[in-house]
């Protein structure tokens, strides 16, 4: 009987697999570091997914979903005047989020390498 590969029994150690939009949102949170909140994340996501337009609502929904998965955490800052006396909800990437993002980057790199060698693209992903 053929023995099953080892990784089949180690599902717990695998990073959460991310959809493309989730990757973009997580990358935006990572890039913005301490300044990651609704408005800035949305702007960064729009920038990363050019020329596609992204609604802010879709970004909120994805942030909520990733928070529930434990990939990011959020907290409310002090209220500010420019926001009508309301707080910002700041986001931060957790270790599991970093791991998931690394895993996605590796997959993207492998895809890029295959596409580049077949279609003759230049540069690195």
């Amino acid at each position, binding site marked *: 009987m053929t023995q099953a590969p080892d990784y089949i029994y180690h599902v717990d150690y695998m990073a959460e697999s991310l959809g493309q939009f989730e990757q973009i949102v997580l990358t935006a949170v990572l890039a913005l570091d301490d300044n990651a909140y609704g408005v800035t994340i949305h702007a960064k996501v729009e920038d990363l997914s050019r020329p596609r337009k992204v609604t*802010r609502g879709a970004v909120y929904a994805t942030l*909520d979903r990733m928070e529930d998965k434990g990939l990011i*955490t959020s*907290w*409310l800052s002090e209220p500010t005047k*420019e926001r*009508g006396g309301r707080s910002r909800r700041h986001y931060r990437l957790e270790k599991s989020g970093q791991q998931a993002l690394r895993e996605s980057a590796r997959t993207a790199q492998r895809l890029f390498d295959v596409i580049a060698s077949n279609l003759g693209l230049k540069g690195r992903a």
Partner: protein
Amino acid sequence: MNGPPPRLEKIVLALIPPLAREAVAGDLCETYRSPRQYGIEALRTVPFVIASQMRRNLNLPALALKVALAWMLVGNAALWLLPALMLADAYQPAARPDAHHAIRQTMILGLAAMIFVQALSMNVSVMLRMGLSRPNWLALYLFGMVVPALLCLLRTGVILHNDRHTLPGAMTQETLAEIHGAFLRRARWHNILEGAALVAAAAMALLWLGAPAAAALTTLYLLTAIYLLLRGTPRALPGGDQRTGLAHYAHALARQRKLRHFLWWLWSAPLLMALAAQLQATPLVAAVSRAGLILLCFLLAVINREHGGRVQEEIGALTRG
């Protein structure tokens, strides 16, 4: 810089679910350029936020149980209740109502019930058609007089019970570990005891109730007991800094709240079923059963409202600053 027109802002605020209101309304305000841009942005954003809050606060077992109980009462019309209940979950309040507001609401509800009963008792033709004799509707009238006081007492009791809990203040890593440890122990014991009680209740349901209600209740009680004992207790604090710990604690609090919400409805299910079965009995018994159903549903709703609000206040305090 100018902000959005107050009236427009008020409408948008009312549409955003309370748990996301502060951050979403703040973001909309920060990017405000004109009333038109603000309105369009709100229209594009709010549906996603509502859908997301519906998903986040979805308590599938509780929802299924409520719809099943409603189905016993009103048949297929109960399916209309499904979207309404899901929407109500999305608009779950971020805090408890203040005591004055809660009591005022209860008094209005009680008085409305009393006026309804009084109006019914005055309409003799309706009473005769229902087959109620004079002494019976007098009893009903007296019951109507007692309802507001009874509802207010129930509401006050729930408010007082929840007021005994204090919110956490500023926390260090050590106090967080301490508070979370106590929460973990409390939740573990609570779940063990409630799991054991559910097993006992399942056995009693099997002995005392007739099929198919007994089979359904026993299965539901046993499945819930197994879940409580195996998966009910929250996990220990993960490694990482205080922010990660606070987020984990807040998540565990929200999960336990959903569990308790379902359990209150589950414990009340046999009583609700028994009362629902009496609705086909004599008019007086049916009327009293209907009143009992309303009172019990009211009690469950206010317990969930107060407890849920208190947990949300606690989560809010944990995730602020």
